[in-house]
C-alpha cells in the first residue's frame, strides 16, 4: 500500500515527460505552461501535492502548515498521569471569525474526569421529578422534536486573566463559541408536564463522577438547549457526545456534558459542583453565576511581534452572559480615548462576536484595551472600577473576572501582558 502510494506521488509530482505521456498531452505544450507560471517543478504545479488518501477524502484535515493547538490550562496536566482531562485552553490568538473549531474548543471536566466513550444507540436522557410524566428519550426520540440551532459561547469560571499570563491563550483561552443544535429544554419539560411547584432542576452527566449542577427552572424555560450537534456535526466526545445541555451565559460548569438525567425539584439541591461554587458573600455568589460582559484583543496579544509602524487591524472577541453584545470600544492610548470598533457579524445572544479596529501605529510605546457593552447595559469594567465599586484594593474581582485586559506595545513592536 505504501509503495503504491509513493509511486503514485512520484508520478504526480515527478517528471514532465512522464506526466505528459500519461495524460496524453504533448510535451512542448507543457513546457510552454511552465514559462507562463514561472519557475516550477516538472509537473506544471509550483507546489508539492498532498497525498489524496482515503482518510483525507473521508474526513479532512487542516494543512500541516497550520500548527495551532490547545494547551493544558493552569498547573494541572491534561492528560494527567492517570489519563484524565481537566482544563485545556483554546488557542484564541490564532482564530478568526466568531466560531471556535470543534477540535480546538476548550475543555473542562468536573473534578478531572476520564472522557466516557458512549454508544449513542445505548444513550438515553431521563427527565423526572416534579413533572406529570417522567420520560426517557433515546437519541432518535430527541431528533424527532423540533430542532433549533444557535450560536453560544461556553466559558469556564477559571478563565481569570492575571499578571503571570504570557499569551491570550493562557489568559483567556477557556472560552469557546459554537453553533449548537438540539431541542429546547422547555420543549422537553412541556412534553413531560412541568408541575407548578418546580423551582430548580439538576442536570447530571454520565461520566464516572456523574457531574451535576442545580439551576433555576426559569433558566430552563427561557433558553436552555439540549444539544446533540456542534458546528454541523455530532458533539465531540470532549464536548459531551452524544448529548449535553447548553445553558447560555452561565458559567461553564453548568453546561453538563454526557447528559443522562434531568431532575425537576422544588429546592436548591446542592451537588458537589454547586458546593464548589459556594461563596461567603452575596456579591461573589451573584457575579459567579451569569457571566458579565467581557472582551479581549486577540491580535496583537501577548508574545506577538509587530514588524514595524503602520496599519494594523486590531481584532478580538466580545461576549456576555446577559445577552447580545451591543458595542465594543478599543483604546490605543491606554484608555484615554475610546473608539467604536466594528462588529464582524450581527451579535447573537450569549455568543462571541468578532470586533476589529483599524489602527495606524506610530511606533511609540502604548497600551491597547477593549471594552464591551451588552444589550442590557452592562459595561466591562477596569480593575480599578471594580475595586472602587466594592471599596476594596485593586485586584479584587468577585465572581468571574470580566475586567478589561491591557496589552502593552513596546517600541520594538513586542507585545506583552499589560497587567504585568
Amino acid at each position, binding site marked *: 500500500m505504501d509503495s503504491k502510494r509513493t509511486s503514485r506521488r512520484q508520478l504526480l509530482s515527478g517528471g514532465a515527460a512522464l506526466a505528459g505521456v500519461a495524460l496524453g498531452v504533448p510535451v512542448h505544450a507543457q513546457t510552454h505552461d511552465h514559462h507562463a507560471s514561472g519557475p516550477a517543478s516538472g509537473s506544471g504545479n509550483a507546489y508539492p501535492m498532498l497525498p489524496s488518501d482515503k482518510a483525507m477524502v473521508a474526513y479532512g484535515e487542516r494543512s500541516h502548515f497550520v500548527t495551532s493547538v490547545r494547551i493544558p490550562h493552569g498547573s494541572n496536566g491534561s492528560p494527567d498521569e492517570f489519563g484524565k482531562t481537566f482544563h485545556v485552553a483554546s488557542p484564541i490568538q490564532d482564530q478568526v471569525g466568531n466560531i471556535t473549531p470543534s477540535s480546538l474548543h476548550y475543555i473542562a471536566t468536573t473534578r478531572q474526569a476520564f472522557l466516557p466513550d458512549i454508544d449513542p444507540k445505548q444513550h438515553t436522557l431521563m427527565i423526572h421529578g416534579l413533572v406529570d410524566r417522567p420520560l426517557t428519550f433515546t437519541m432518535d426520540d430527541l431528533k424527532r422534536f423540533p430542532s433549533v440551532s444557535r450560536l453560544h459561547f461556553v466559558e469556564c469560571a477559571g478563565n481569570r486573566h492575571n499578571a503571570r499570563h504570557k499569551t491570550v491563550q493562557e489568559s483567556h483561552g477557556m472560552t469557546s463559541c459554537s453553533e449548537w443544535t438540539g431541542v429546547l429544554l422547555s420543549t422537553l419539560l412541556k412534553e413531560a408536564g412541568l408541575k407548578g411547584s418546580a423551582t430548580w432542576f439538576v442536570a447530571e452527566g454520565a461520566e464516572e463522577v456523574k457531574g451535576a449542577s442545580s439551576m433555576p427552572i426559569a433558566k430552563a424555560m427561557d433558553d436552555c438547549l439540549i444539544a446533540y450537534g456542534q458546528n454541523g456535526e455530532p458533539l465531540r466526545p470532549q464536548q459531551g457526545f452524544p448529548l449535553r445541555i447548553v445553558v447560555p451565559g452561565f458559567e461553564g460548569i453548568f453546561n453538563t456534558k454526557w447528559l443522562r438525567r434531568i431532575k425537576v425539584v422544588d429546592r436548591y439541591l446542592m*451537588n458537589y459542583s454547586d458546593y464548589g461554587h459556594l461563596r461567603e458573600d452575596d456579591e461573589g455568589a451573584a457575579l459567579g453565576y451569569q457571566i458579565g460582559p467581557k472582551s479581549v484583543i486577540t491580535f496583537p496579544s501577548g508574545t506577538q511581534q509587530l514588524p514595524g509602524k503602520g496599519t494594523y487591524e486590531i481584532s478580538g472577541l466580545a461576549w456576555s452572559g446577559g445577552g447580545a453584545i451591543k458595542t465594543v470600544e478599543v483604546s490605543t492610548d491606554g484608555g484615554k480615548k475610546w473608539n467604536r470598533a466594528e462588529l464582524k457579524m450581527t451579535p447573537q445572544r450569549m455568543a462571541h462576536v468578532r470586533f476589529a479596529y483599524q489602527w495606524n501605529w506610530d511606533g511609540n510605546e502604548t497600551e491597547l484595551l477593549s471594552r464591551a457593552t451588552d444589550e442590557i447595559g452592562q459595561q*466591562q*469594567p477596569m480593575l480599578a472600577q471594580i475595586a472602587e465599586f466594592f471599596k476594596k484594593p485593586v485586584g479584587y474581582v468577585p465572581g468571574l473576572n*470580566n475586567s478589561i485586559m491591557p496589552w502593552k506595545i513596546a517600541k520594538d513592536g513586542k507585545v506583552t501582558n499589560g497587567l504585568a
Partner: protein
Amino acid sequence: MGSLKLAAALLLLGSPVLASTALAQSAPTYGLGRVPSAEEVRARDINISETGEELPPGRGTPKEGEKVFTLQGCIVCHGPEGVGGVGPKLKSSTSQDLPIWRRERILPLRSPFATTVWDYINRGMPLGREGTLKPDEVYALTAYLLFVNKVIPEDTVLDEKSLPKVKMPIGEGYARLPDWKPNTPRLTGYPY
C-alpha cells in the same frame, strides 16, 4: 379535536394510573419518549438532597469508616487520615477557632450539608470504581471524614435518619444564589 388528541395521549401512556394523572394535569404535544418504571427512575436517580429523604437504609461509624478508607484504597490517593496523598486533602489542619471561610475548602468541613458529602462519595469515589460502594460503606466513610474534621464525635452512628441532622460548621453562613431572571443584570446596582 382536543379530546381526540388527549385520548391518543392516554393510549400512548398505557397505564391507567398514569393516564388519570395526565388527565388532571397536562397532555404531551409530541408523544415522544417512554415513561420509565418507578424502578428505572430509582436506579438512575442518585441525588441526595439536604433532607436526606432519598437516602437508602444503612449505617456506619467513624471507626468502621477508617477501615473502609484503607480497604477501598482511599488511602492510596488521599494519604493516611486524608493527608499527604496525590489526591485532595480531606482533613483540616487549621484551628477550629478560625471562621470557616478562613479554613480549607474540604468537602466534609466546608459543605453546608452532610448529605452532599454522602452524595459525592457515593457518585464520585473511588477513582475508576465510582458507584460501587455499598450504602454502609458510604455512611462509614462519611462518618470517618466528618470525625477527622471534628464535625462529629467518634461515637456517632450515621444512618439515613441521623445523617441529614448533622450540624455542619458553616451553619447558615454562606451566600444564597440570586433569584435569576432573564435579561437582568447580575447584581442589582452593579453596572458591570
